[in-house]
Structure formats: C-alpha cells, structure tokens
C-alpha cells in the first residue's frame, strides 16, 4: 500500500523512536507495516538501530559469576531442539550398521588428530586475543572508570525520575535572570534531581544554591551547583527522608561553598 509524501514524512519521523524501542504499540505496528514495502525507511531503521545498540554497549561491563557457564550449558544440554537434525542422521546411518564398527575406529583416530590440531589452533588464537586485549586494557581502564562514575550518577537521577512518588516543581527566572528556567523532580525515597537552563555565568567565588521551601519558615538547602559554559545545570541532590513536603524551590547566588541560609538575590523561584 503506497503512502502519500505527507504520510511518508510522518512515518519517517517515527524511525529514531522505533530504533530505541520507544514507540507505542499502535505506532510500531504502523511503521512495521510500512517497512515491509519501503527500502529507504528500512535502511534508516538499520542505521538508527546501530546507534541505539551502541547505547546498550556503552555501559559498565561485569563478569558473570563463573558458575553460570556450567548452568547455561547444562540447560542447553537438557533442551533438545537443534539435536533433531543430528538424530535423524543417526537414524539413516543405522541402515549401514555393519560398516559402523570399522568406520568408528577410523573416525576416532582421525578425530583425535583433528582434535589436537584444533587445540593447537585454539591456543594460538587465545594468545593472539590476549595480546590484543592487554594492549587495549591500558587505554580503556581509565575510560571505563570514568564511564562507571558517570553512569552511577545518571542511574540515581533516573531512579528519582522513575520513582512512583516523584513530584515535579517548575522554576521560573526572576527579573534578574528572566531567560532562566529550572525544573526539579523530588522523590522522598530517591532524592532530588534539578535541571536549569540559561543561567547567567557566575562571578569568581560565587555559586548557585538550591533551596527547598517548606511549611517551615526557614528554607532548607538542597546543595550548591555551578552551570556549564552554556548556562545549563543538571544536578542530583540527596534529601533527608524526613524532609518536610516541599511547597516550592528557589535558587540564589551565594559565596562559594554555599550559605546556611539564603543571603544573595533570587534567580529562580517555583512554582
């Protein structure tokens, strides 16, 4: 079924989300029906799936417990699906039973020689692979450590954002920073994630500080942060489990290290 150029553009826009598995079932069915008849979109899917696949590879690597190998291979041994082909061949071979005994000893001898050759080849292969691995290990050790740190931070942020008790508070720029905006996600069980954009750059020795406003008169400090050169910030703060329910949040500028109570001008306030 041919699609109109408009429909095609619409379907084309679903491809990145399809590749990362984020389409709703209805959208996915619609795109899949189209893929069967559109080479161009199929090629696009392939290239975006490689990108999405890289996300699944760009994660900290852990060795599975050694005992798992035997468990998996035992489970495979107990499952007989692919053996069907082999047993059919055996059934046919049984017609030639008189030949089998003689043939078997020959096969065994040849098999042993082959096995020895295979072992030698495997050892050579393993040595080569180990050499490659060691050459790479030096270069990648530090990168892996960096990635694991970054990944741990993001995972705790995601834990906040996916917590069933998450609450969102939007912050708007005050007259001193009208272009700025911020957003906080707070979960009693998981902590606080704060993002902001278009924050003015800070003078030397100054920092931004995020305050939680509650029913109590004194704002409670969530922590300090500095935006990047583009004025963006994305921070994760732990909050005490007995934090009174936030009614709002505010961001002020304070001396480096932060202040026990707000002293500087407010940049962001919400809601």
């Amino acid at each position, binding site marked *: 079924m041919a699609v109109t150029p408009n429909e095609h553009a619409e379907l084309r826009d679903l491809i990145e989300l399809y590749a990362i*598995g984020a389409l709703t079932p209805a959208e996915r069915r619609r795109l899949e029906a189209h893929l069967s008849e559109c080479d161009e979109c199929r090629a696009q899917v392939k*290239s975006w799936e490689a*990108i*999405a696949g890289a*996300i699944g590879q760009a994660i900290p690597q852990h060795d599975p417990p050694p005992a798992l190998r035997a468990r998996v291979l035992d*489970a495979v041994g107990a499952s007989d699906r692919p053996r069907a082909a082999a047993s059919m061949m055996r059934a046919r071979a049984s017609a030639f039973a008189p030949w089998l005994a003689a043939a078997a000893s020959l096969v065994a001898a040849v098999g042993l020689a082959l096995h020895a050759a295979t072992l030698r080849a495997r050892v050579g292969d393993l040595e080569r692979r180990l050499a490659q691995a060691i050459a790479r290990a030096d270069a990648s050790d530090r990168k892996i450590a960096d990635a694991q740190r970054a990944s741990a931070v993001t995972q705790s942020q995601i834990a906040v954002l996916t917590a069933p008790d998450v609450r969102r508070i939007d912050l708007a720029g005050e007259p001193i920073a009208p272009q700025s905006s911020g957003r906080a996600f707070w979960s009693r069980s998981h902590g606080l994630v704060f993002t902001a954009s278009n924050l003015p750059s800070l003078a030397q020795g100054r920092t931004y500080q995020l305050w939680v406003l509650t029913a109590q008169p004194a704002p409670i400090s969530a922590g300090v942060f500095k935006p990047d050169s583009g004025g963006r910030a994305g921070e994760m703060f732990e909050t005490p489990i007995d934090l009174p329910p936030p009614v709002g949040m505010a961001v002020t500028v304070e001396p480096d290290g932060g202040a026990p109570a707000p002293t500087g001008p407010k940049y962001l306030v919400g809601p």
Partner: protein
Amino acid sequence: MWILAAAFGRPARPPSPAEHPAEDQHALRRIADGDADAIAELYDRHARRVYSLALRILGDAPEAEDVVQEVFLQAWRQASRYTATRGVVAAWLQTLTRSRAIDRLRARRPYADAAGGDRAATEAVDSGPPIDWQFLSSEQTRLVRVALERLPLLQRVAIELAYFEGLTHAEIAARLEEPLGTIKTRIRAGLMKLREALAGVA
C-alpha cells in the same frame, strides 16, 4: 612465559564482539546442526556483554543470570532460523537480552502501563523485521558513550528511560509530566547528537 606474567599482571578483557562476526556466524551454523561446543564458544565470547546489559536493566544479579540463561537457550533453539537472516550475531544477542530483561522489568512494575505496551518486548523481537544492524567497534562505542554523557540531562534521561527501562515516549511523557511531542523531540535530538559523534569514524 610472557602469557603467564601478563595474565597475572591485570585482568584480561575479551575483545569486542564486533571483531568476530564471521566466527559468530560459523558458531551459529554449528549450533543449528546441534553442536553444543559451539554454544559454549558463543557463551565465552558474549556472556559478559549479555550479563552486563541484563544487570544494567534489572539491577539484580540473580535475575540478570536468569536472563543470560534464557538468551543462550533461545540462541540454541532459534539458531537455524536466525542464520537464514545473515545478521550480526552479537546484535541479535543484544536485542534478545534487552527484550527479555525489559519484559521482566515490566512484569515487576506494580501498576499497569496504561500509555504503553500491550505487547511484550520479546514478542516484538520475534515478530519484527530481522535484526541486521551493524555492531559498532569499541572505539565507536566509546564515542557514543562520551556523546551520551555530554547530552543535556533531560535528553539523556529520555533516551535512557526508553532504552534501559523500556518505556514508550508516551509513558516517559506521563512519568515526567511533559507534553507528548517534547519527549519525541528530545529523544530524536539526543540520538542525532550520538550519530553526529560517529560521523567520520569508520
């Protein structure tokens, strides 16, 4: 001699599966013929990645181990069907791993995913088009990781919620109280930056 010294010197890291596509294909053909040694070979090359991805998605070691077992059992059972597509085995295993882990994650959620899947991720893999994307090299993967870390937080969060939590864009929007279109735009913008990071790297 050097091999011993080196082995004790530091933990060996298996090479990237991207480097063994032909060996993997060969192993899969042997699996299709019922050769159990070939599944052991595939396990030794890929178990670490399969386990790491399952662990990243589920955050639970025993469950991740169960996923590893399911994935290799599925590879064993479906090898003959998969060899016909001539896809990259490592990519197939990764897709199987993600969908099995996501199915477990969905089953674990206490509430119904109203905006989301009426279809299990595993089923989507089994009935969807063949998996034939290219597995990226370790250098390309590193570039993607760096690019991912540099994404604006909310773009990265949307991408990670989709890939690692298996949420649809509608579910992500509901979760973050954002309009539908915003999440779509954010995911697409983020993925485009990841692709830009790879531009010019073969």
